[in-house]
């Protein structure tokens, strides 16, 4: 009897998990993903395509800052050991609206703040970010092939706590991309 109960519970859990993973990708498509080698290191050249949900748009226009985080990871598979994590980088971009001055600010953390008059201009800056230095040249071995995992999402960790709760089962507060995986042969 107990066993049957456990089986039922396990089924329910699996179902719930499947739903969550199915919902995991919402709204953001990665339209371009490329890694370029430059003199000072490797840079990510990526473009995203998304639009804010109506709730997010209202929230931004009400003065609430919204954060977008890009995560990239370069791993080299090793048959004899766990994968070698050559580069794991993360960049967060803040979008907020100055209700007084009626301008939009886009601030990539550690960089200068850009100001835009309209939301679309500001979003364009987020969709097409500049080339982001993800790691020094010494991080990768030339000639080796790396698996690259790229993900871009609206970072809910920066939302206020009630919204974090709300976001658990409200897709208005969810903006995520799939994990984009591609290989890169280091130069």
């Amino acid at each position, binding site marked *: 009897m107990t066993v049957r109960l456990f089986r039922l519970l396990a089924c329910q859990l699996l179902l719930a998990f499947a739903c969550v993973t199915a919902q995991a990708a919402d709204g953001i498509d990665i339209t371009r993903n490329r890694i370029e080698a430059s003199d000072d290191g490797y840079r990510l050249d990526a473009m995203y395509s998304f639009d804010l949900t109506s709730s997010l748009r209202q929230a931004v226009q009400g003065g609430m800052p919204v954060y977008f985080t890009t995560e990239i990871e370069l791993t080299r598979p090793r048959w004899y050991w766990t994968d070698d994590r050559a580069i794991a980088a993360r960049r967060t971009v803040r979008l907020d609206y100055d209700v007084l001055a009626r301008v939009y600010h886009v601030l990539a953390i550690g960089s200068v703040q850009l100001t835009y008059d309209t939301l679309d201009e500001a979003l364009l800056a987020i969709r097409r970010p500049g080339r982001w230095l993800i790691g020094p040249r010494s991080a990768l071995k030339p000639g080796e092939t790396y698996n690259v995992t790229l993900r871009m999402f609206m970072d809910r960790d920066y939302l*206020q*706590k*009630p919204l*974090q709760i709300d976001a*658990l089962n409200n897709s208005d507060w969810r903006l995520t991309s799939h994990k984009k995986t591609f290989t890169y042969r280091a130069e």
Partner: protein
Amino acid sequence: MTKALRYALVVGSAIASILLFLLASASDNSGFLDRYFSWLLGLNVAVAGALLLLVIVYLARLYSRYKAGRFGSKLMARLVLLFAGIGILPGLVIFMVSVQFVSHSIESWFDVKIEAALDSGLKLGQAALDEALSDLGATAGTTAVTLAGQPDGSARIVLMRTVDDGMQSAMLLDAGGKLLASASEDHGTDLSPDLPTAQMLRQAAMPGGYARIEGGMDRVVHDNSGDNNGEHNGLDAATGLRLRVVIAVPEPPGVAPRYLQLLQGVPVNLASNAEVISTAYSEYRDRKFGRTGLRKMYIGTLTLTLLLAIFGAIGSAFLIAGNLAQPLLVLAEGTRAVAEGDLSPRPIVETSDELGTLTQSFNAMTGQLFEARSAVERNRAALESAKAHLESVLANMSAGVIVLDADGVVVNSNDAVHRILQVDVAALAGQPLDAIQGLESFAGAVTRAFSAQSAAQSAQSASGRRSQLRAHWQQQIEIPRRSGNDDDHDITVLARGSRLPVGVGSGFIVVFDDISDVISAQRSVAWGEVARRLAHEIKNPLTPIQLSAERLQMKLADSLDPQSAALLKKGTDTIVNQVDAMKRMVDDFRDYAKAPPAVLSPLDLNDLIAQILNLYLAEDGSDVIHAALAPGLPRVMGDATQLRQVIHNLLQNAQDALVDRPPQDVPARIDVVTEAIYYVGADGATGTAVRLAIVDNGPGFAPKILSRAFEPYVTSKARGTGLGLPMVKKIVDEHGGRIDVANRSDGSGASVSILLLKLAPEANLAANLASA
């Protein structure tokens, strides 16, 4: 309930409490655990799930036990329901009230009026700033018109004049953004950070120019800390709030374009108020967006709290119920064990309350029960062994014992009865003794004897005398053999009977011994005595008879005619011969009665036999006597002369038995066998004996002869005194041996075996060594 589950429950409750506290602390409007709030929530949910699982496991086990009717599960279930109910019901009530409260109170915070007021305030602020900006734009327009056409050198004066009107700074720039002239509020400050960007210049070239409010809220993102609460402080930000206007100077055609930039700080009270309003507006909007989440958060936290409380209550209910029920279960287990006969002490519950006392007294009770039962067991075992001992004594007694009830029905009898009477009386128990076939005369004698005794007792009690008469009777009873079996001789038993006063009513016990052998021995002793006297009485007149006859012949032979003389001679010869024969016979009797005592000395029996057999053997292959003498036979103590006579007698008997054989039969054969016999004596020590057997294949002993073979004058031969075997027996008895005569088991021939138990001392020693 196992220990592991118990610990899991306790630890789970502790973790749940800590997590719940953290969750409640983090639920307020502070930066505490801001970034990890969802993790905390997830952990709480996970712990609640684990506890739920645990409780389900408990309940399932309880249910299955309840279903299976396991002892104690009903009590347990009732206790669990009770405690869980006490824990859950108040929690449920509080939860309902709280949820109601939260869902309605939070909604009420978001007032449309407040929102509208904040909106208006914001718009006011924006309008004020816009007003200031347009003022600045107008100033810039007039200044630009003034500057138009003026060289760079004189432009500075115009700019300084403009700055004096309350500007922070005024700059004149060329199209490339290069500074041509400038003036500022406080001279000497570096103006390069305030230079317009290329984008601004581009916009300035458009009609209307570039006019923007700058600075203000400069919210800095802190990656690691969620504490950005204080950065919305309007007063701090107000210092940086300023207005910037960049317009193109309306130059006459053909002159390189120039741009004028004016920077003006917003008045502090306007800036700070506008900031306060905008901050409040933002926060209000935040709350408004977050209100669903806030409600979810509170309800979720409350639900989690309720769940944890319920699980905790049920878990604690299990613990408490288990603790309460356990001593009772121990006791119940104990009573069941006692019912099954297990009286071992139960584990004592170490509490000082009534339950502890109960188990202690229960243990004391089982202890006493155990003592009593073991005492009974011991008594029973002792009784049984005594009974078994008595029974074995009775069974192994040589005397026959028959127990009769008052009606003469056989109640019990021992094995010896069967042996002596040749009737299995034990198997016929329950029948009257006189109804048993073959025992009619015995039964009659017994009945008469008991009647006579009771008559004597009655007579005695009537006459008032008490002392002499014994309580039992004793009588010799002859039991005739069953008809049709005339080979058997009668059995003579000596029977004693007594009344049994025990049990219900009275009974009789008859004890009897087979005294046929005793009678036989008495007979042979009597015969010996008779023979000795007769020999003495007969022998005395024989010599005078013989002498007289001889004298008659001697005196009368010459004085008679030859015819008469011949007659006389014949008569006297007959007399002398018969007297001689009679003398010999008398001598035999005397010898038998007065055999000289045996003189025992070490003797090799095999040697003796070999010497004797020399006389019988022709060594030509036609011998009927075959000797099988065991080599290394121990020497015996014996009288060689007497033993020789024994062997002669036996061989003679065997040869006599083989004379009347039908000729077509198997060849006659006599076996003479000696061997050493090892036996265990009555004292437990091993002993050695020498056995001599003489076996023939003649007709064997007649049954009538067999039982009385050692009595004198019992013979089957036409000629014979019947003293041969009695003589042998006498000699063997004097040697301390045993003699047995028997017919061979296959029915053809007789076997006589002599067991000599007295061995020469050194032979005994050697034999003991050999057997050791």
